[in-house]
């Protein structure tokens, strides 16, 4: 059987990997590669779920891991890539906040997350508790991506990163919420993305742009 030390070590590596992919999404201007990075991130999350399931013997986590891999690592990236190709919008040309600055803000958010979550992490005595601040940092990063980018696709991506963060938090803190809830969330998410796809398409048709700031004007 694995030692607890080895388990934590691999788990930590995976969580940092997830965080780094979050930063990479901030880094890249190319929408397609951002979507691919998101796929990698989800794959890492799935691996993390498998790893925890393997260690704790929580069988339902295998199912959830499979779902994550199938929906978030494959289906959603495919969908989003389709939107990008169809709309012919490939790069985030000028985000609200410059790439260099937003990377620094991103690193700052990680510090904030660490600061905020440290008491929580200290309060639990799960072997996974150290990675909790990283999961929370993912939530903040996701929010930050959503507010700092102009293109609708990136904003969806930000929302998805946020969702990944919440999922990671759940997996780390409670070894996964009940399966049925999780499945429900995934279904919602999937449908949500489908709706967003349609919406983005419509926005593009109406305004000939997917920059969301064109929606600022309330009168139609």
């Amino acid at each position, binding site marked *: 059987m694995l030692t607890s030390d080895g388990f934590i*070590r691999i788990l*930590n*590596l995976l*969580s*940092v990997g997830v*965080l*780094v992919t979050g*930063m990479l999404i901030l*880094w890249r201007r190319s929408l397609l590669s951002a979507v691919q990075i998101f796929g990698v991130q989800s794959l890492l999350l799935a691996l993390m779920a498998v790893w925890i399931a393997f260690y704790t013997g929580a069988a339902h986590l295998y199912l959830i891991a499979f779902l994550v891999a199938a929906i978030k690592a494959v289906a959603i990236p495919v969908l989003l890539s389709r939107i990008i190709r169809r709309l012919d919008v490939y790069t985030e040309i000028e985000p609200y906040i*410059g*790439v*260099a*600055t937003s*990377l*620094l803000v*991103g*690193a700052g958010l*990680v*510090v904030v997350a*660490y600061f905020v979550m440290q008491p929580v992490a200290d309060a639990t005595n799960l072997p996974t508790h*150290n*990675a909790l*601040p*990283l999961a929370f940092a993912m939530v903040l990063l996701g929010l930050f991506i959503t507010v700092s980018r102009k293109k609708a696709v990136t904003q969806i991506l930000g929302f998805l990163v946020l969702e990944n963060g919440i999922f990671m938090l759940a997996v780390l803190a409670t070894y996964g919420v009940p399966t049925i809830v999780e499945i429900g969330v995934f279904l919602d998410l999937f449908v949500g993305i489908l709706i967003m796809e349609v919406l983005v398409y419509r926005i593009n048709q109406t305004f000939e742009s997917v920059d969301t700031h064109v929606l600022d004007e309330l009168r139609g």
Partner: protein
Amino acid sequence: MDYVAKFLIAVVQLLIVLGASPVLVSLIRRLKARLQGRLGPPWFQPYYDLAKYFQKESVVSETASWIFNFTPYLQFVCMLLIALFVPFYTAMLPLDATGGIIVIMYFFLLSTFFLALSGLDTGSAFGGMGSSREMTIAALAEPTIILAVFSISLVANSTNISTIILRLGSDYGLLFNPTHLLAFAAFVIVTIAETGRLPVDNPTTHLELTMIHEAMILEYSGRHLALVEWSAWMKLFLFLSLLTNLFFPWGVATSLDLLSFVAGLVIFAVKLTLAAGAIAFMETILAKVRIFRVPELLAGSFAIALLAIISFYVL
């Protein structure tokens, strides 16, 4: 370690950096040529170049001052000095207690400082432009270097190179810790920026307006040029040695016997070949980025280095 062994190791370190750095450059050039479908220059081309430069006269601008003549020698000596502190095949560095990794980084900065001054010295617009850009990149790369070095020394709990290598080498668990890997990623980026490789700077460019490092040395000729070029190669060699040995200290000799030295040398050669292959490959598939996109790259490496430190405290 007795003094004879110390002295011998120091001499061998110097010989390695002087002798092997042109080979490393040649290796990268040949690999790149292969990837571009060419045969490429002969193996010993850098040596031919050096020998030829040393045989030529040196033309110095009328405007230039002693700084211009002094810089190549200073650079050369700085690189030699750094070579005494960088692990190649053995961790038993004779002068390790004289200064650690911070000293190395500041001697690199010293040579950059003077090179930038010599770029300004001739009054040529190209030189000034090169200096300005070089200092911009150095100023932005410096924080990442410091933070990456900080991460390594956190993991190994030392800033002295020998100690770092010994501690990391004795516990492979330390190598696969997030801090170490993130610091590695950050260090890779600053290595590229500091040694003037693609996508930050193009070492083979002929257009002055796209130059960074090359623009500063446009005025050098003869023996000065030989020294500047050789120093640049040594800098690349030293950075790659640091990169490979600090982060993957496998096979670095930790005892004073011939067998481990030989094994260390062989493994070191393999590591450098891999690093050279990676550089050649990257330079083939990447294009140079605009100079004002370089800060994004470096900000990224800074963020990664910061993450490395945070993850050390968190995890």
